[in-house]
Every structure is written in structure tokens, then in C-alpha cells.
């Protein structure tokens, strides 16, 4: 649309040759220099990308996907990492040999990138408008107002709500999904030839992921951008890409058209990868809900509210009604899942259960009633309830050895001698599939999946009655996720532990839960057994959640879904006001649904 873009595409049109690749990578090898030795992290990677095409790079964590994309951008962190062989060609020019000045002109302009982590990839102190127009002005000599106009256009293109207002907002004022849209707008503002999207949706919940993926596809159709999509989610691959490259340990395992790979994977690794993908069904099969055993946790009318202060004397003026009147039981030995989109209050329930936030209503866990417990009783309670957090890196003290971390609960509760403790930790390590000789390492020396296993080992150390897993597998790649889920199932079978499983991934939930509760804005909208929820979803919100899950089948035709681009409704109310309580009705067999059938957003 812009003059520059037209000029360039005109220049590119060669007389009669076959369509030139937008980008080609030839024998790319990336090495790291550590302790005086050079080690290849990515070896001999080659592929070409045609204009308008989408290639997916899939593979387990640490297989070199991000490094490849950084190499293409010329952003490998010096001096440790460098491209040691091969070439990356754009218009016949080898980007690996380009001086920084010329490379800078290409970055953002011809090749743009969306990073894995939308939360940290935007500069927190600059307004959205500023960050957008800056990208535009870096490559096109336009005035400030013109840049702002184009920025607004870009924001409109990504269908963000209230685009004018966003220009003057700051990243922290936007939700994760909105930030990712801003990132996309930024990347596409200059209509690059190539867009690299490194796990653009991993950090987002399903509904938002759905929207972002749709958006990317629409934009690509409109602008003809070639996309390199990096992901470990085979569902996303199936929906988005034409061709796929499967990587493992820095090397290509298999490559080919998506349909072909999904239909007939040639390599065992690819087969494993596909097998590990959790698929949604209709809730049938597998274990029946445990019988009416005694509950390990009873929540009655749980409310958690956070005060917002303001005014001259900093009185409470508003409250966040994070959890509002939630009641349920978790029975011994069952897996109870809590689903719902970001901010609906799932983590808050988990925190209330472990006594990390004050609450109203009643919570009984393992025979103790929370609230007003003495420190000793609290400590005793903690033997019975353990939590595995979403982000394992954040939950582990980075300055302690993992062996000490896992052994710490034993030490705190005075169990055993140093020798027996160490032995027990070693057993736990083996149990979760880690090696004994890794005991003396530090958290940052493990991969994400390994770290999560360390957290699980720690949670199991005391053999609690209830383990809360708060988004414990969301950030893991499929194969690791599958391993962790298997591990959880095995431990449950072995020790009869009950789980409170918090997730936004409906497919995972379906695969492991006994019972499921769906939350929306701090309240429960539907609850029932797995079969009831997945086989017979009643509430429209539940249905929406399920419809948003990407399907790992290239042939799948997605029914059109109304696009939403609003803000998540806010659970903040002025003092004295409270959200309307939803009333759950039993529609048979313990399947609870919010009253009015026409309930919507």
C-alpha cells in the first residue's frame, strides 16, 4: 500500500524466472563458544520460504528453533553465539555477512519478528504509539504525525479494540492477548517480506490464542507475507502451516507438507511428537469418577476480594472480586480441574487453599479448617496440601541446588536425618525421571520440563493428600507435557493423591480429569464429570472454550466463530457493589449449570 512497498515489489518481479524464494537458509550452523570449545547448537539447517507461504518449525524445547530465528534476524547474542557455517539469503544477499548498518535496514523492514514472550517483549516505559511509530520511522522518512497515523492503521489492522486509546497506553495496561496483537502490528506495520513468529501464542490462553492465530492468517492473506511459525503445538501447526520442519537437538528430523507429515510421519520422533498431542474428544472413555469418597477439600461459598485504595486518606474505594461464592469438593484420589480464561480467579482459589491469601467463606482441607490456625497447625496443614506453580523457574529459588530444594520440605518438617533425606530426594528424582547426579545443579541448568519435574518432586516429598497444579504444564512442549502428565497420573495411582488441576487447555483437561469446573469472572458457570462437561457442555462459555482449541488435523474445517476483540470484563467493583451471584442448578447426575440458559457475555 505504501509507496516503498510498491517500489520494492516492482523491483523484485524478475522477468520470467520461477517465483524467487522470499528467504532461503542454506546449511546454517550456529555454534556456541564456551570454556574454549566450540559446540554446534544448530547443525546444517536448510530450507526455502516462498513468498506468502507459511512454514512451521516444530520440535521439542531446546531444539534450536529460537536460535535459528535469531540468526535470521542477525540478533544472536555476541560474542558467545555465532553463525559458524552456511548462509541466509534474502534477495540473493547473504545476511550473515552483512555489516550491522545494512542489517539494521533489513530488520523490521524486510524481516520482522514476533517474540515468544509478549509480557516482556514490549518496553514497559514507552507508550504503545511510541513503540509503533518508532518502528515505522526507523525505516521510512515520515513525519511524526504520519508515523502515528500509520501506527493507528496497523493497530486497526490487528483488530484491537479502541485502537486510538491504545496508542497512548502502556504495555502493562494491556492484557497478554492485546500485547501480542501490538507485537504483531509492530511487525507488520512495514509490510515485511518475511515474518518470524516465535511461539506467538504459547503464553496465551486458548480463546486469545484462537484470535491471534486467526489474525495472523487473515493478515497474511491480505499482505502476502511469508511466515516462519515456530511452535511446539502440533494443533497450531496443522491449522496454520503449509510445510513443516521438525527439529530435534539442532538438526532437522523431517520436513515436508503438513498434510503429508500428519498423515504419514516417516521418522519415529515425528510419530512420537504427534502421538503426544492431547486431542479433544467428547469426554468418553477412561476412568469413571471415583465413588463418593470423603472429600480432602471442601470449599463453601468461598470469596476472595482484594482492596483497591484511593482518596485522600487512602481508604478502600474499590474491590477486586476475584473469587465470588465458589463451592465445590475435591474427593480423595480424584483429579478435579478448574478451567477458564486468564484472570477468572483460578490461581486465587489455589492461593486461598494454601492460605496465601485471606478469604471469606469456609475452606476445609484434610480435616483442618483454614483461617485462624496457629503457626503449628498451619505447618501441619502444609504437609497435606502442596502446590506446583505455573512457572517452575519462578517457583524455584535460583540460588539453591535442586537437591536441597527438593529436600527442603523434609528438612522443614523435620523428617529423617541428612542421609535418609538425601536418599529420599534421590529416589524422588528417579521417580520423576531425573538423574541422581543432577542433584547438585542449579535450576537454571535445567530445561523447562525438567524444572517442572523438580517442582513436582518437591511437592511429592511430603506425600500430601492434595496437590494443586496451577497451569503446571501449560508452558511445556507437547512431548514433555505428555511425560509430565503421565508422571502425575502414575503418582496419583501409586499414592492416591487428589489433584486440583488448573488449566486453560481444554484438551489436556479432558485427558486427565475426573471432574471439571468452568469458571468465568470469579464465579463458577458449570461443573460436572468429565463426560458431562465434554460430552454435553451446557453453558455457552464452556462451548466457546472448547471450540477455541486448535485441532491437530490439517483436514479439519473450523466452523466460523464470532471474532471478539474486547477487553476481558473487569471484576473490579466500587465499594458496596458486588457482582450478581449466579445460581447453579443441577441438571442431573451432579452436572451443575448456571441458571439462565441464555447466559452470555
Amino acid at each position, binding site marked *: 500500500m505504501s509507496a516503498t512497498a510498491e517500489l520494492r515489489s516492482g523491483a523484485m518481479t524478475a522477468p520470467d524466472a520461477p517465483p524467487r524464494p522470499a528467504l532461503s537458509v542454506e546449511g546454517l550452523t550456529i555454534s556456541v563458544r564456551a570454556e574454549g570449545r566450540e559446540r554446534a547448537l544448530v547443525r546444517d539447517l536448510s530450507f526455502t520460504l516462498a513468498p506468502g507461504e507459511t512454514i512451521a518449525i516444530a520440535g521439542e524445547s531446546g531444539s534450536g528453533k529460537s536460535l535459528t530465528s535469531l540468526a535470521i*534476524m542477525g*540478533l544472536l547474542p555476541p560474542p558467545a553465539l555465532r553463525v559458524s557455517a552456511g548462509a541466509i539469503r534474502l534477495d540473493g544477499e547473504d545476511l550473515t555477512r552483512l555489516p*550491522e548498518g545494512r542489517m*539494521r*535496514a*533489513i*530488520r*523490521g*523492514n524486510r524481516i*520482522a*519478528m514476533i*517474540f515468544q*514472550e509478549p509480557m*516482556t*517483549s*514490549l*518496553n*514497559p*516505559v*514507552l*507508550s504503545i504509539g511510541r513503540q509503533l511509530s*518508532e*518502528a515505522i520511522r*526507523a*525505516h521510512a522518512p515520515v513525519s511524526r504525525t504520519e508515523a502515528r497515523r500509520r501506527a493507528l492503521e496497523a493497530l486497526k489492522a490487528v483488530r484491537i479494540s479502541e485502537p486510538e486509546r491504545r496508542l497512548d497506553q*502502556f504495555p*502493562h*495496561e494491556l492484557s497478554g492477548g492485546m500485547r501480542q496483537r501490538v*507485537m504483531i502490528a*509492530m511487525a507488520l506495520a512495514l509490510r515485511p517480506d518475511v515474518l518470524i513468529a516465535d511461539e506467538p501464542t504459547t503464553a496465551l490462553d486458548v480463546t486469545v490464542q484462537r484470535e491471534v492465530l486467526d489474525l495472523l492468517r487473515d493478515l497474511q492473506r491480505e499482505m502476502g507475507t511469508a511466515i516462519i511459525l515456530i511452535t511446539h503445538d502440533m494443533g497450531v501447526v496443522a491449522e496454520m502451516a503449509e510445510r513443516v520442519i521438525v527439529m530435534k537437538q539442532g538438526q532437522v528430523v523431517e520436513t515436508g507438507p503438513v498434510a503429508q507429515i500428519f498423515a504419514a510421519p516417516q521418522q519415529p520422533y515425528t510419530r512420537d511428537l504427534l502421538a503426544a498431542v492431547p486431542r479433544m474428544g467428547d469426554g468418553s472413555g477412561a476412568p469413571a469418577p471415583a465413588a463418593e469418597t470423603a472429600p480432602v477439600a471442601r470449599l463453601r461459598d468461598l470469596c476472595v476480594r482484594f482492596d483497591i*485504595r*484511593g*482518596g*485522600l*486518606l*487512602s481508604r478502600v474505594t474499590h474491590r477486586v472480586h476475584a473469587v465470588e461464592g465458589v463451592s465445590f469438593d475435591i474427593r480423595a484420589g480424584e483429579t478435579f480441574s478448574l478451567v477458564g480464561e486468564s484472570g477468572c480467579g483460578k490461581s486465587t482459589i489455589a492461593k486461598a487453599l494454601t492460605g496465601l491469601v485471606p478469604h471469606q467463606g469456609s475452606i476445609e482441607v484434610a480435616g483442618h479448617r483454614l483461617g485462624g490456625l496457629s503457626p503449628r497447625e498451619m505447618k501441619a496443614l502444609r504437609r497435606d496440601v502442596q502446590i506446583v506453580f505455573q512457572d517452575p523457574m519462578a517457583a524455584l529459588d535460583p540460588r539453591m541446588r535442586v537437591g536441597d530444594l527438593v529436600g527442603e520440605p523434609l528438612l522443614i518438617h523435620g523428617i529423617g536425618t541428612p542421609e535418609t533425606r538425601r536418599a529420599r530426594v534421590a529416589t524422588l528424582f528417579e521417580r520423576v525421571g531425573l538423574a541422581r547426579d543432577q542433584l547438585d545443579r542449579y535450576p537454571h541448568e535445567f530445561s523447562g520440563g525438567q524444572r517442572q519435574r523438580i517442582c513436582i518432586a518437591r511437592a511429592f516429598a511430603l506425600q500430601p493428600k492434595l496437590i494443586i497444579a496451577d497451569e503446571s504444564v501449560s508452558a511445556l512442549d507437547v512431548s514433555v507435557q505428555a511425560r509430565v502428565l503421565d508422571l502425575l497420573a502414575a503418582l496419583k495411582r501409586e499414592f492416591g493423591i487428589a489433584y486440583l488441576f488448573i488449566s486453560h487447555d481444554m484438551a489436556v483437561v479432558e485427558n486427565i480429569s475426573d471432574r471439571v469446573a468452568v469458571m468465568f469472572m470469579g464465579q463458577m458457570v458449570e461443573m460436572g464429570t468429565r463426560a458431562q462437561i465434554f460430552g454435553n457442555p451446557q453453558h455457552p462459555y464452556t462451548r466457546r472454550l472448547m471450540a477455541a482449541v486448535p485441532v491437530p488435523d490439517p483436514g479439519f474445517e473450523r466452523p466460523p466463530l464470532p471474532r471478539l476483540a474486547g477487553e476481558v470484563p473487569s471484576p473490579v467493583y466500587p465499594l458496596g457493589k458486588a457482582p450478581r451471584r449466579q445460581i447453579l442448578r443441577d441438571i442431573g447426575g451432579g452436572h451443575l449449570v448456571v441458571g439462565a440458559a441464555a447466559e452470555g457475555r
Partner: protein
Amino acid sequence: MLAYVFRRLVQSALILLGVSFITFLLLYVLPADPVRQIAGRSATPETVENIRRQLGLDQPFIVQYGRYLAGLFHGDMGRSYLQKTEVAALIMARLPATLLLMLGAIVAELAIGLSLGVLAAVRRGGALDQSLMIASFVAVSAPQFVVGLLLLYVFAVKLGWFPIGGYGHLSNLVLPAMTLGIMGSGWYSRMMRSSMIDVLRSDYIRTARAKGLGRARVLALHAMPNAILPIIAMIGIDIGIFMSGIVVVESVFGWPGIGQLAWQAIQRVDIPIIMGVTLVSACAIVLGNLLADLVTPFIDPRIKLR
């Protein structure tokens, strides 16, 4: 915001009250009698007693303090024992100079410290980084009197670029502000270096580079504002640290600020002046901290003042 400022001001007032009480108490128990200073060497014992009574120094501590406070509320800081002048007048005559000097010093130390810190962070581990590290320690360890005299000798006497001491022109300000700022620049360059190293590792810097921005722009626009955040609070603390340096710097450069006033007052136990200067400097520190806290949200929109 307004509510925040209001609450902070109330807190500040309480802090000032605390400062005034402690100072008054310390001066009260100090083993030195101001009256003998006033009365001078040929005074007879009855003259001494007379003066003591007139100044109310024969009263119990609480009464003296109460009177002082009552005076303060009427804007009366008392009269200097030895200079026989309104303390408020003495301080007001000298305060602008000190504030100017502090401002100059803050500008100097930030300009030097921050830019060197950024330089060291960018050239991390290199020879430049190492020499800047040593330089920052020299800056922190150098006695200000010697630094001041050296600067004066080299730049004013030998090179004649600046006047030898004096007050009134911008050219007068340069050397004293530098002297006072040098120590701080050492601190700031160290702080800035480590803060900058953290920021340079962050994702948004990578994003900025991915946009194709130039190196200078990335540093100045994206890295600096973030790296400076942990340092802003230091600037508030700084004003307190300046107070002792100011005595030396003002005397070397003949700068007519409150430092010299305070120094003379301490030497001669001129209690009203000591009290006045202490309160004024406490005010400056408290306001400086408040200002630092108020500025932060402008640089970091995430911070809400509550």
C-alpha cells in the same frame, strides 16, 4: 496523586518533628555550654547567669523544646546566639546558593556517572570497563577538600578557565558542583553499570533491535529510562550525603551557602543555627525523596503512587 502527596507531606511533617526533637535533645545533652560562648572570656559569672536566664536556657528541657516548637509554628527559628541575627534570615540568605550548588552537583554527578556507567556496561569486561571501575573508586575515595583545591588550582589558577571561587555566574558554579558531584558520580557509575547490564539482557531491548533501530537509539530511548529507574531513589538519598560535603566545598570555593554557616555554628554551639540548618536540610532531604518518588511514575508508567 494529590492524595499521595498529601499523605506524604503529613508523614514528612512528622519526620521533621522527630528530627527537631532528636536534634534538640542531642544539643541539650551535649557537653558544651553555649552561654559561655556568648558571654565571652571576660564575662563575670553573673553576666553568664543573666544571659542564661534571658535565653531561657535555665528552663527544663521540655519547656525549652516547647518554646522552640511554638516559635517554629510562627515561622520564628530564633536568633543566633553569636551572630545575633534571625536564624531564618541567615538561612534564607544562604539557602539559594546551597540549593544551586546541590542542583549543579546532581546534574554533574548524573551526567558523569550515568554516561560512564552506560559506557562501562556496553563495554563490559573490556579494558575501558576496568579503568572506569578504578576511576569510580578514585572518585569515591578522594577527599573533597583535596579534589576541590586540585580543580581550583588546575582550572582556575593555572588555566584560568574559571574564576577562583566566588558566586553569581554560571562559571562560578562549575568547579564547586564538579567537586561535590565527583564522589556521587563514582557511585552512580557503579550503580548504572549493573542496572544497565540487567536491562541490556531484557527482551524488549531485543525487540527494539529487531525493529531495526540504531544502537544509540536503543541505548538512549529504550535502555536508559529502564536502567535509571532503580537509581532515581538514590538521588533522594544523595541530598543527605551532600550535606557533609557541602561544608568542605563551600569553604574551598567561597560559596555562600548554609554549609559554612552550619560549620561555624557547630564549632561554637550556636544552637538556634544548628537547629535551623538541621531542619532545613531535613526538609530538603524529605522533599528530595518525595520528589524522587513523584518523578518515578513519569518515567515508569507501571508505578502508581498509593
